[in-house]
């Protein structure tokens, strides 16, 4: 494995992994989680989950607190033994392999940098445990220090470093062992906004250059979407949906996933007719009886109660009546607005009494607000943006 030193200077985010191994039926997953469960007394933290992660992915497990993601991570690392199920990494069953013998390393949420050792000693700790030759250790440590830009701080102790610097020590310490899998527990949580963005790109670049499979655990959906090749949304010990960021955002499987990412508008409706070929469903919105068309991956039949979901940024707002095909249109009054500079968020009360949230880019330069409270507006969006969900 060669570490390309020049790569560290480019801070442009690389595209997502161009290959999509999860679509290739011949590809063997690098990490296989089969029927994995963890029970504490009468409480199931992880409830019989299956997952395949492929080599080179930057895979994120996303969920709120208490969903079981940390327990899952700890089982991957070897700090908890599963109550049942298997973890197979690169073809090897990890069931009887303790944490210190696994080809897995972890970057802890608290960084867990050893306070009584210098940066150098921290980073070389893993290599010393591998009983590497002293000269090898020295050269690899100095390479790694350069990679994470900590060369000048090599002799410092952790309490003399900033939070971001300590994180880099934790990262270097784990990466220097060239693990097959790197686990990251809430890597961006403790950082302030600017540092978070910078670190995001650094992590993605590092992962791409080194080709190590990353498994990230986070509660932050922005983090999940920006970093990952694929995301698994987890709740109450189970995976609700696994897919690419675009998939989970634009084609959520249910209300939970839809609501998890950003904001979304929900409309209750009843199915009138379905077209299995095109996947288009015609449904009648409750209260108004307006007929809308939407797309879905699910199986519905006439008479089913469904939820139509539309993202705020898909909706256009104007004071003129919109024209076009395949549009869903409604009228309303601006009840509330929030101006963010680059965009504005409007909460529009439609004729049926619903509040619809719209996010519009402020593409016109004006010192006055384009739309004000109590303005009458038309909301319109392409019907393909209607996602039909089962609850």
């Amino acid at each position, binding site marked *: 494995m060669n570490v390309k030193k020049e790569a560290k200077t480019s801070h442009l985010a690389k595209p997502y992994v161009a290959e999509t191994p999860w679509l290739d039926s011949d590809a063997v997953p690098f990490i296989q989680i089969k029927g994995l469960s963890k029970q504490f007394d009468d409480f199931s933290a992880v409830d019989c989950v299956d997952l395949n992660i492929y080599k080179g992915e930057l895979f994120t497990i996303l969920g709120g607190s208490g969903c079981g993601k940390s327990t899952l991570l700890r089982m991957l*690392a*070897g*700090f908890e033994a599963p109550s049942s199920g298997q973890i197979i990494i690169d073809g090897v069953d990890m069931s009887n392999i*303790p*944490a*210190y*013998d696994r080809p*897995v*390393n*972890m970057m*802890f*949420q*608290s960084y*867990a940098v*050893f*306070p*009584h050792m210098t940066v150098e000693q921290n980073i070389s*700790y*893993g290599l010393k*445990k*591998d009983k590497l030759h002293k000269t090898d250790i020295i050269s690899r440590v100095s390479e790694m220090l350069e990679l994470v830009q900590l060369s000048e701080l090599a002799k410092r102790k952790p*309490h*003399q470093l900033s*939070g971001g610097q300590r994180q880099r020590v*934790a990262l270097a*310490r*784990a990466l220097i*062992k060239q693990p097959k899998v790197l686990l990251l527990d809430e890597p961006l949580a403790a950082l302030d906004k600017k540092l978070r963005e910078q670190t995001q790109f650094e992590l993605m670049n590092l992962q791409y250059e080194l080709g190590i499979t990353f498994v990230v655990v986070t509660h932050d959906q922005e983090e999940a979407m920006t970093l990952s090749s694929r995301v698994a949304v987890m709740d109450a010990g189970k995976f609700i949906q696994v897919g690419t960021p675009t998939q989970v955002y634009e084609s959520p499987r249910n209300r939970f996933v839809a609501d998890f990412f950003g904001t979304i508008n929900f409309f209750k409706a009843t199915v009138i007719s379905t077209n299995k070929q095109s996947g288009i469903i015609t449904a009648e919105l409750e209260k108004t009886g307006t007929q809308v068309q939407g797309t879905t991956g699910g199986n519905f039949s006439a008479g089913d109660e469904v939820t139509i979901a539309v993202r705020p940024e898909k909706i256009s707002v104007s004071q003129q009546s919109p024209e076009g095909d395949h549009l869903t249109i409604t009228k309303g009054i601006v009840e509330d607005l929030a101006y963010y500079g680059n965009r504005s968020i409007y909460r529009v009360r439609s004729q049926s009494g619903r509040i619809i949230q719209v996010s519009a880019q402020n593409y016109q330069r004006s010192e006055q607000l384009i739309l004000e409270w109590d303005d009458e507006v038309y909301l319109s969006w392409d019907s393909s943006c209607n996602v039909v969900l089962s609850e």
Partner: protein
Amino acid sequence: MNKSSRFIFSSLCFGFAFLYIPILVLILYSFNQSAISSVWGGFSLRWYTALFNNDQIIESALLSLKIAATSATFATILGTMAGLALTQMGRYRGRFLFTGLIAAPLVMPEVITGLSLLLMFVSLQELIGWPVSRGAGTITIAHITFSMAYVAVIVQSRLSSMDQSLQEAAMDLGGRPMQVAFDITLPLIAPSMLSGWLLAFTLSLDDLVIASFTSGAGASTLPMVIFSKIKLGVTPDVNALATLIIGTVSIGIVIASWMMFRQAKRHSIIND
């Protein structure tokens, strides 16, 4: 100051006065020329001279110091192991009894511990021929036994407030449990181990009851000698001894507190 603050303040004053006045009087009278404490005969160091010429006291003091150092060291080792066993090793059969065995010596009346240990030594002697005779060795064993509980409590308390992820990180990087203990855990609890050692040392040096039970011919510890003297009444050379001990300990504590205070300040300035 409102009423309750005044009450608290006066309680503090009264409390500390109560604690310290006897000690101060003790020190004062060690310099008393007269042997009778109610009569102040003038400032004198005669009791200090008497003290240094008292072979019995000096011998017993040396013996006590030897026993204290030995028992403190072993108590620290065993107590640290117990602390680790109770916080780091998870669940195992017999753990509940173990916690009881660590808690009980902290409160067990000394007469019970002393008597039971003595009878134990006697029985062992009958059964396996050891210990051949009682003395410094058996006293040391007794002191180790109750001191290790104190060390264990101190170590336990430090371990439970320590960041668990440090040890997990070491394991994750390839450290086997024993390596993690020596590389990470022990260095981080070293101050607590030192406190434990000092506590065990003091407890041993100060113990009368257990030493009386578990001692044998010829092994008289300092407390035993002092006790036999003071049973009969006040003897000022003991005042001199007390002053010396109190003085040494106080200086030690003040220095230790000051050092700890400085170290804490240093860390808090640099940490967030």
